[in-house]
């Protein structure tokens, strides 16, 4: 008896140590994620580009991803970017997410699955409904989620992945998508499990104990919950850092305040406040008092605007304080 317990414990110990090692390896390999969010026009793209160039110049392998459907990293770097990451320097790559590409890819995949499982005539009828579905609201943020997952999976060898997000509304929908989806999925799973239990009772009485076919919808719901939960954990992980960009003015201040509240509702914490377009000698006391728990990064106003890799590098050389404690 004692021996059996020892063996069991030993085996468990091995499994546990393997797990620990795997987790440790993941931790080493896992890139840090930086999200740049904020009101339209405050300088999310510029500050995220600067931060990426800063990381890259420190020798870290960095990927900058533009998630804003109206991309402007191409203007900042004065280069053409696409879904495929382009190398800007030895350590920096930049890509622009094409939401239309992701929506189209997703719809094609779904159509293929429907054609596989549906009877010919019903698949044919369904096409009409389906054509309308693709214009449904909500697909845009889902495309962003797909792009995010894909990036995260494909480029996990990078040390830093910087996401230049869309303006507030779309970004908040992006962050809340896994949370809302999980609430829905859990309710649907409850109902589906209830149905399955009753079907089991029926089959027990009717066909005396023969097992009923496994419910594919239930299995799918369960696997979806697992996937969304891991995505949610990714957003809440301590390697994910949300940078809220704002200017030193009333409008962007009050929007920043609201963003913080909305994100707190879904337990996402803002790591850092970036005050952009600061003029010399300007006081930022009000922002500092309001956001006491966040680190503060200051970026001074670049009079001529910034464009081109060299200008970004020069700006960084003159403005090291913006990157302190990042």
């Amino acid at each position: 008896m004692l021996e059996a317990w020892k063996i069991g414990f030993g085996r468990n110990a091995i499994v546990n140590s393997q797990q620990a090692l795997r987790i440790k390896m993941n931790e080493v390999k896992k890139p840090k994620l930086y999200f740049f969010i904020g009101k339209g026009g405050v300088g999310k793209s510029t500050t995220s580009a600067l931060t990426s160039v800063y990381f890259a110049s420190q020798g870290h392998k960095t990927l900058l991803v533009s998630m804003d459907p109206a991309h402007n990293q191409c203007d900042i770097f004065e280069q053409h970017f696409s879904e495929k990451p382009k190398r800007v320097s030895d350590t920096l790559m930049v890509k622009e997410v094409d939401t239309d590409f992701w929506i189209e890819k997703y719809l094609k995949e779904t159509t293929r699955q429907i054609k596989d499982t549906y009877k010919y005539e019903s698949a044919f009828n369904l096409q009409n409904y389906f054509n309308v579905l693709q214009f449904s609201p909500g697909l845009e943020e889902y495309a962003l989620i797909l792009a995010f997952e894909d990036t995260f999976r494909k480029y996990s060898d990078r040390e830093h992945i910087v996401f230049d997000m869309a303006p507030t509304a779309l970004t908040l929908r992006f962050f809340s998508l896994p949370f809302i989806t999980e609430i829905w999925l859990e309710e649907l799973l409850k109902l589906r499990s209830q149905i399955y239990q009753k079907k089991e009772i029926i089959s027990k009485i009717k066909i005396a104990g023969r097992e009923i076919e496994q419910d594919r919808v239930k299995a799918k719901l369960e696997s979806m919950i697992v996937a969304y939960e891991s995505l949610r954990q990714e957003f809440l992980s301590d390697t994910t850092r949300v940078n809220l960009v704002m200017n030193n003015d009333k409008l962007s201040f009050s929007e920043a305040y609201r963003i913080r509240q909305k994100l707190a509702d879904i337990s996402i914490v803002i790591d850092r406040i970036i005050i952009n377009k600061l003029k010399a000698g300007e006081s930022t006391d009000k922002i500092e008092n309001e956001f006491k728990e966040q680190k503060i990064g200051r970026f001074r106003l670049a009079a001529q605007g910034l464009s081109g890799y060299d200008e970004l590098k020069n700006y960084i050389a003159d403005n090291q304080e913006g990157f302190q404690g990042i």
Partner: protein
Amino acid sequence: MVRILRWFKKHIIEAFKISDEVMRAKAVETIEHEVAELDNIFGILVLGAFIGIPSPPIHITMELLPLMDKELDIMLDKVLTAHDPLGHLFSTLGID
């Protein structure tokens, strides 16, 4: 004689089997109706967008759609007979 008895035995067993099946079916009639209704509710919840009812986030519908051909068929069929919901209920409960 033995042959006749065997013949009787076989038929009596068959009769029992049939009556057993009928009894079993009767026993689950109501719960079957309930399951069918729950199935419909689930169908409407997930695929409501197809008949003009607010649905969950659209990607949930999209993910489950390939697995729900039966539910979709039933739901679209239900829409056509929606003017007479009581008729269906009465026939299930055996009220004439």
